[in-house]
């Protein structure tokens, strides 16, 4: 167990991190992610308010759509990344555990009189069901069928008589969904999912934080505090696609300035031979000069590679560029590679 944003979270279950990763890629992984925060924005001004607060395009969003977005400050630095859901008459915003208090303060500080912000984090539990068999499992045990929902949409379903807001979203690169429901049913739903998986012969296992990290890493998804943070702007992290420059949003002008000047560093993937790259390790050019630093790194079980994400000088950002990663004082051969290492299911 490890302390994580005030929660005790298992790094891995007895199954082991590498096998947990494999199970999620081949069948179904269950993720106990109650630590994630959920805010709801309501009121006549909600659409205009959300549009200004988040980077993503919101003008075309109607129920039941869901979308990835960034929360930026005036400098274009990344306060958090979010999933925003357009509900029947409000917005549902999912934030990271570590940033929940600060995000809420940010939302409140920019609130207009015509919106209400409700923090549902404590009352709401969140379980992710991810993997190629996840949708089949949920279809068999709940109703209505989630297979009828498109990717990045949501629906209201019932499993074991528990009312659930289901988003066909996730953080693993696999198909599946995320379940929001009243916290008092958490244990009952968790056990029901495991029992039904076993009963139906659909391999279903609990997945810990280590595999959650390697799954998201392979699929090219960022983790706040690593690929994105309050000292990293959206452009250098490669998130221009998550910003709608047709609208006005906090951080927009700063990002336009970065685009005009060109970013001073870029996020790249790096594959390493002869060692495991990890957060904080330096990256050097072929001449030995330090050109960047790893923000995450690990063994990637599905693609069977030792890889890092690193911020490097733009001249070294092209795929195929040979570099070195310094592992315990030893420069190891490495090469800049295209991200993601593993193509997520929704892009296949």
């Amino acid at each position, binding site marked *: 167990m490890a302390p994580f944003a005030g929660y005790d979270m298992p790094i891995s279950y007895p199954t082991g991190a590498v*096998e947990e990763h494999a199970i999620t890629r081949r069948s179904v992984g269950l993720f106990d992610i109650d630590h994630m925060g959920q805010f709801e924005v309501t009121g006549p001004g909600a659409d205009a308010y959300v549009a200004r607060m988040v980077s993503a395009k919101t003008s075309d969003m109607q129920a039941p759509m869901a979308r990835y977005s960034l929360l930026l400050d005036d400098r274009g630095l990344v306060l958090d990344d979010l999933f925003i859901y357009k509900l029947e008459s409000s917005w549902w915003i999912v934030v990271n555990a570590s940033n929940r208090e600060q995000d809420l303060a940010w939302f409140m500080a920019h609130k207009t009189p015509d919106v209400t912000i409700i923090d549902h984090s404590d009352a709401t539990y969140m379980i992710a069901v991810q993997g190629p068999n996840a949708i089949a499992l949920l279809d068999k045990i709940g109703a209505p069928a989630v297979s009828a929902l498109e990717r990045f949409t949501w629906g209201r379903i019932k499993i074991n008589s528990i009312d659930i807001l289901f988003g066909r979203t996730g953080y693993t690169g696999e198909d599946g969904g995320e379940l929001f429901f009243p916290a008092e049913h958490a244990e009952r739903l968790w056990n029901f999912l495991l029992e039904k998986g076993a009963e139906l012969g659909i391999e279903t296992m609990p997945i810990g934080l280590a595999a959650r990290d390697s799954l998201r890493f392979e699929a090219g998804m960022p983790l706040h505090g690593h690929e994105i943070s309050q000292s990293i702007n959206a452009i250098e992290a490669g998130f221009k696609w998550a910003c709608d420059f047709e609208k006005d949003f906090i951080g927009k002008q700063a990002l336009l300035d970065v685009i005009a000047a060109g970013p001073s560093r870029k996020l790249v993937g790096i594959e390493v031979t002869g060692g495991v790259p990890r957060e904080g390790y330096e990256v050097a050019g072929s001449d030995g000069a330090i050109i960047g630093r790893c923000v995450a790194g690990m063994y990637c079980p599905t693609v069977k590679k030792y890889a890092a994400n690193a911020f490097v000088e733009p001249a070294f950002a092209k795929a195929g560029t040979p570099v070195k990663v310094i592992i315990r004082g030893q420069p190891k051969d490495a090469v800049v590679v295209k991200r993601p290492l593993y193509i997520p299911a929704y892009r296949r």
Partner: protein
Amino acid sequence: MSIDVNARYAESHEYARLEGAAVVCGISDHAQAELGDIVFIELPAVGKSLKKGETFGTVESVKAASDLYMPISGTIAEVNGALQADPALVNREPYGAGWLVKITPADLSEMDKLMDAKTYGKTIGEE
């Protein structure tokens, strides 16, 4: 947790087991369980002479990198090449196919200074 009764143990959880003229060295079952899934192992060149307590390699698990320490002084006679392709052998068979190096001992009496299986078992909380 299993403990090989034929091996002797260092406080840093490496085992040393005399086989003919060589000492087979690896990490204990307790150590592999504490480390979790092992994903990379760096081992020394054959022929390298190292003193007891010196670093001879690194084992990288999902969680972290850990140094490996010579349980006795000697020369590296052989390294386990199978670990390059399958480092998890150390998780599955720490005392068998997951051995790390074979050492030609410089002074076999150093084995006496290591813990026997019973004493090691007590240090890791097993009787």
